[in-house]
């Protein structure tokens, strides 16, 4: 007799255990890791499928809060597909789903036949839904939507049912949030990339290069930028900046700052004045904090004027391999509320020197001193190859080696050409380049002990040869001229090569270029072949024989 109740207890315990196992299986079905690989629509459809099976319900629906924060819109449904197709919407606070969102807790309607006023969706009546259970979708304490299930026969939802549905809701909320972030960061990255210059200018005698590395975490993309503005044929504007924060909002603000710099740069010459105006713009926008350097580069003199708003120091790499941070006083970052003016500082590049601008992501490391990052940058910059493109790449890869880069990083390098015995530059066949080219030739001749007369002579001869190429050899288009200078035993030889065919001089006073070249050079040779014209100019340098 004693075994009877015991048997009964065993049976009860067994059924509890069975139920627990079933519940565990149910939970596993809705938290299945494989679901993470589905896109959002497939994931929602699959979760609604599973939840209707597990809870043995007839309908299931997900409604999401719209951007306005006040409206719920149907996003996915099973058994109530028309709800999604017809774009059903209702205000937060009204109807069944509206109340779940408003009260931020599960709500059960045991029998709609007795309380028909509790729903506003006619579809629920049409489908003869009798019992409903709804739970909120919550992300970081914010309701982003509602998940509800329903049955066409009256049903008592148990605490276990509510718990399971809430678990599914959490899963759905997470997936939706993830998908929203992914879309946002994709937009942010696309926006960012579209705002970075695709091709940098290639002025004679100077080389520019830049690299941008998005943060390792997709959602961290956003605030860094660099820009090169062709202010005039002989002057460039250079910007590097970093907007605080990440994601779409940072990228959008970055775009506004970038445009503002461009506008002010065309208006005023002084970089300090550009930043002073930019700071006023930033205050007016009431937006996030940003750091920026704006610089102008004189292509003739290689003088760089710059102003700095809280941005990391530019690095000046000398030809002898030494390096110096340009730590001249700076104004505060933009958007700090401080009324600020910014001062101009000047650094002039000598031949073969490089100026490196970068954003803080390059030198800031968690748990490390900033000065360690700076030291690492100096070492990497000095060791890297001279070519500015390679320099940027190598610096980036060395400083981010083995690190999950938490911040995006931008690097911009500008380098003046070395003036060794051999000089070769390619220039666009445009008259606007002539003055810059003359400066470059004067500099090269002077470096190799040429007198003022030598400098002037080569400047005009080279300019004439190039002007001939520009005028006669090419129509409009992307043509280039190659200039090569070399030094042999005190005699300088310059060749100007184009890939066109010189036409006969037009007009009575045209064709004066050749006599002028001959006047200033010891020897002038002009050779025209099928593949272009080469002018060779020679003159002995210095006061020697």
């Amino acid at each position, binding site marked *: 007799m004693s075994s009877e109740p015991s048997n009964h207890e065993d049976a009860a315990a067994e059924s509890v255990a069975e139920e627990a196992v079933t519940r565990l299986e149910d939970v596993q079905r809705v938290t299945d890791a494989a679901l993470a690989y589905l896109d959002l629509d497939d994931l929602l459809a699959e979760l609604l499928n599973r939840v209707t099976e597990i809870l043995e319900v007839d309908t299931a629906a997900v409604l999401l809060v719209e951007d306005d924060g006040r409206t719920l819109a149907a996003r996915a449904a099973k058994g109530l597909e028309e709800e999604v197709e017809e774009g059903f919407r209702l205000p937060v606070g009204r109807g069944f789903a509206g109340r779940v969102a408003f009260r931020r807790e599960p709500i059960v309607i045991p029998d709609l036949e007795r309380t028909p006023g509790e729903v506003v969706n006619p579809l629920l009546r049409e489908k003869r839904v009798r019992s409903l259970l709804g739970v909120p979708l919550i992300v970081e304490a914010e309701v982003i939507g509602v998940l509800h299930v329903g049955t066409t026969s009256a049903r008592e939802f148990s605490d276990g049912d509510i718990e399971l549905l809430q678990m599914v809701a959490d899963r759905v909320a997470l997936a939706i949030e993830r998908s929203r972030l992914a879309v946002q960061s994709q937009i942010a990255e696309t926006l960012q990339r579209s705002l970075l210059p695709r091709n940098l200018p290639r002025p004679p005698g100077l080389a520019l290069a830049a690299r941008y590395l998005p943060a390792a975490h997709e959602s961290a993309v956003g605030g860094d930028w660099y820009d090169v503005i062709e202010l005039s044929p002989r002057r460039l504007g250079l910007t590097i900046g970093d907007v605080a924060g990440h994601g779409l909002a940072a990228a959008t603000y970055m775009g506004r700052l970038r445009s503002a710099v461009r506008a002010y740069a065309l208006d005023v010459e002084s970089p300090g004045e550009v930043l002073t105006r930019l700071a006023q713009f930033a205050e007016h926008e009431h937006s996030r904090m940003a750091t920026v350097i704006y610089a102008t580069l004189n292509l003739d003199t290689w003088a760089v004027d710059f102003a700095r708003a809280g941005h990391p120091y530019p690095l000046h790499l000398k030809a002898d391999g030494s390096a110096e941070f340009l730590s001249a006083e700076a104004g505060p970052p933009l958007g700090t509320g401080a009324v600020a003016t910014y001062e101009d500082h000047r650094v002039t590049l000598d031949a073969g020197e490089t100026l490196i601008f970068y954003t803080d992501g390059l030198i800031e490391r968690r748990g490390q001193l900033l000065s360690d990052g700076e030291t690492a940058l100096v070492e990497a910059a000095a060791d890297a190859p001279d070519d500015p493109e390679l320099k940027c790449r190598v610096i980036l890869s060395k400083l981010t080696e083995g690190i999950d880069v938490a911040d995006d990083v931008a690097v911009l390098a500008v380098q003046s050409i070395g003036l060794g015995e051999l000089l070769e530059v390619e220039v666009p066949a445009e008259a606007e380049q002539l003055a810059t080219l003359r400066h470059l030739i004067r500099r090269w001749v002077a470096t190799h002990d040429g007198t003022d007369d030598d400098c002037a002579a080569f400047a005009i001869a080279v300019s004439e040869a190039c002007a001939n190429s520009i005028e006669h050899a090419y129509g409009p288009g992307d043509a280039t001229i190659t200039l090569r200078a070399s030094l042999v035993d005190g005699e300088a030889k310059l060749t100007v090569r184009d890939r066109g065919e010189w036409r006969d001089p037009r*007009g009575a006073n045209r064709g004066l270029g050749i006599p*002028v070249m001959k*006047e200033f050079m010891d020897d002038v040779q002009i050779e025209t072949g099928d593949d272009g014209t080469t002018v060779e100019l020679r003159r002995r340098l210095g006061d020697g024989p």
Partner: protein
Amino acid sequence: MPELARLSLESDGDVELARVAGEVDASNVDDLSLRLLEAVTNKSRALVLDLTETVYIDSSGISLIFDAAARLRNRRQQLRLVVPPRSFVGEVLAAVSMERSVPIDPDLAGALRAVGSSG
């Protein structure tokens, strides 16, 4: 950045004075030429082109001067140049024997005296 060349124009009665400071090459010669010819009206008797502050000129600038001289000659107007001796511009103009076509004075006062201007 200042323009490659700066042109300043002055009128002294029927004598036009044009000063060119900076560099003249193929990139700015057309613009300079246009502005120079606009400065000379039917009432003008002479144009004095002062190249004292011109630090660079090449064949495009030489063409400009030859063209201007021919136009003014057709309109019975004079052209005189001011070029300091032993300057780069002087050297370039000498290379094409400019002095045979257009009178050159070493300073502005001389040029103005020669065209009979009071200023």
